[in-house]
């Protein structure tokens, strides 16, 4: 490696910063979709770098399912405080109350599907023309073909057959009235890249990512946290275990993993040797082999 060569983390960082700046330059009213997970924490970190010493020139949008781990909300508020970013929250509870969406019932009830409607509603209300997301192409089959600049029609839909080719580092964010873009600056990062980078950069993370003792139960091979909002079947007996989250999402569908990882370095060695993809712990993806793709077409991501 010669003196003028970036290592892979710095090259990914530079690419993501380029995309973030491109969004600030090409769109009038962008927003960063903030889920509370490590990928959106990474996005905020990169956005700070991209616009330093100015503040991040767009707000963060969090869709609160009302079923978040309390740690997630606490961490989010601290992050907003620390970065001086503006926060907008879309509440699924409000959407249920107003009749925009209807709550699912039963054992596998999840508000994940409802998130989509609330997200689209919040984007429309805020008149955002670009929504930045922390999705990565390595996460799931349907995402492997996602563009950095992903065009959505006026219904927020994604048409995999009608995506603009992306060449070199030329991004085409032109659109008609009413249309918008989803932009994914960390498309080329893998889970391992994200962890390695967060470690190198010493980025603060929510405690949920590290091993802690929690009451859990098993369902369809996945460990779920015991919380008042998940109905348990009789045979689903809770037990105390050392666990951690690999993704942070809605409590009803985010699996936890038996783990002893106490530090980011521990997590890296765990990720490097693990035999399950991180989305493997999300019951919403398992509903069918193409479920992500189906949700995506209707605007989930």
């Amino acid at each position, binding site marked *: 490696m010669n003196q*003028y060569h970036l*290592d*892979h983390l710095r090259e990914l960082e530079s690419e993501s910063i380029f995309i973030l*700046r491109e969004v600030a330059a090409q769109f009038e009213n962008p927003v960063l979709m903030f889920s509370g997970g490590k990928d959106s924490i990474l996005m905020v970190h990169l956005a700070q770098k991209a616009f*330093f*010493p*100015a503040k991040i020139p767009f707000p963060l949008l969090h869709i609160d399912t009302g079923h978040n781990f309390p740690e997630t909300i606490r961490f989010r508020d601290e992050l907003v405080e620390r970065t001086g970013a503006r926060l907008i929250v879309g509440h699924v509870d409000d959407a249920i109350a107003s009749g925009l969406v209807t709550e699912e019932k039963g054992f596998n009830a999840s508000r994940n599907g409802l998130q989509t409607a609330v997200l689209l509603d919040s984007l429309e209300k805020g008149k955002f023309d670009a929504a930045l997301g922390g999705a990565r192409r390595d996460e799931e089959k349907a995402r492997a073909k996602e563009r950095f600049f992903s065009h959505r029609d006026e219904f927020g839909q994604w048409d*995999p057959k009608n995506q603009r*080719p*992306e060449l070199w580092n030329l991004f085409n964010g032109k659109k008609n009235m009413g249309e918008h873009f989803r932009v994914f600056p960390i498309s080329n990062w893998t889970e391992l890249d994200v962890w390695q980078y967060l470690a190198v950069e010493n980025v603060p993370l929510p405690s949920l990512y590290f091993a802690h003792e929690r009451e859990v139960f098993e369902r369809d091979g996945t460990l779920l946290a015991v919380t008042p909002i998940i109905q348990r079947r009789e045979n689903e007996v809770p037990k105390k275990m050392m666990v951690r989250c690999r993704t942070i999402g809605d409590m009803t569908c985010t699996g936890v993993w038996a783990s002893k990882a106490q530090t980011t370095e521990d997590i890296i060695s765990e990720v490097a040797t693990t035999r399950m993809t991180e989305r493997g712990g999300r019951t919403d993806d398992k509903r069918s082999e193409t479920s992500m793709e189906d949700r995506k077409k209707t605007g989930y991501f």
Partner: protein
Amino acid sequence: MSNNSELLRFTTAGSVDDGKSTLIGRLLYDSKSIFQDQLEAVESATLRRGEEGVNLALLTDGLKSEREQGITIDVAYRYFSTPKRKFIIADTPGHIQYTRNMVTGASTANVALVLVDARNGIVEQTRRHAIIASLLQIPHLVFCINKMDLVDFDQVRYEEIKEELEGFAAKLNIKDVAFIPMSALNGDNVVERSLAMQWYGGSTLLYYLENVHIGSDYNLIDARFPVQHVIRPNTDEYHDYRGYAGRIAGGIFRKGDEVTLLPSGFKSKIAKIDTIDGELEEAFPPQSITILLENDLDLSRGDMIVRENNQPRVTQDLELMVCWFDAEKSLKAGGKYAIRHTTQEARCVIKEIRYKLDINSLHRNQEDLEINANDIARIFVRTTKPLFVDGYAKNRITGSVIIIDEGTNNTVGAGMVR
């Protein structure tokens, strides 16, 4: 994987059924980049198709529609890493009408893999893909002579194909060409050396990918900094801060450098190269940085910082090799479009279509000038304002443009500056 490994981007091409998906599946599988749940999903999908074992090709099949048709229809990106490098694969389909996808995947690649079925040897697609790789100036081209198991791992057959490819590749403008005989299905010479082909003394594909020299794939000589975004914090602490944010497109910039600003031609000096992590003494491609100048010259997006004695062409007239993407409307002389180059946007008119390139024979066709989707043509355009360009061969970043239809906003063409 260590933190300081390099990133290598490669693209794969070949005609349908040459074994591209199998090869990628094999690379992912043998480099242990496949997760248990992905493998289980593929095993069950293999069974549902009435096949046995693990169909490695299914690992890389992305979307439902193509799973149904059994062909890859769009560029898909895959990731794997070894202790030496992280790899990004742009998996592009071999179908004839999807030249656009190959061009897209090739535009950022360091290496192109072109698969050849050892039974068939060079076919139309092989030529086409190699020509595209050379047009897009991918620095390294590897011909993967696949399915060697079906020709009894015969050295004579391999040498025959290699010789023919060498003759053909000599006519192309590619810096570095390599040949590897392999069986993607059985894994010979992909990650592990082939026991059946002891006569082959070269490296395996993975060894090649891990070691090929990519340090000089960026232009480190001609300093080019397109201003992407202007940073003005407007806070008390940074009251007079005016930073030019962007990604270095070429050359090395140092604090204190005398620079020339385009289009004004004014001169200044680099006061500071800024990042959140502190000042840098020097910066190089593809770093994203912020440059502060000594005097306040009010640059904006699309302007370029260069050096006095090494400037790009400042011109409204471009000669381009263009690949056309629009399936509905052909490229017409007199047509008006939006054009994007680095961080600039302008409008342009197509002044002349010089010839259509037959990408099977490299023949320049001056009679039939109807340029449809997936055609490649040499054209002249005039832009509404000056662009700061280099020849594509000199710099892929400052030598490339995209053409946008102003009615649909679609990207309808990709152009490389002569």
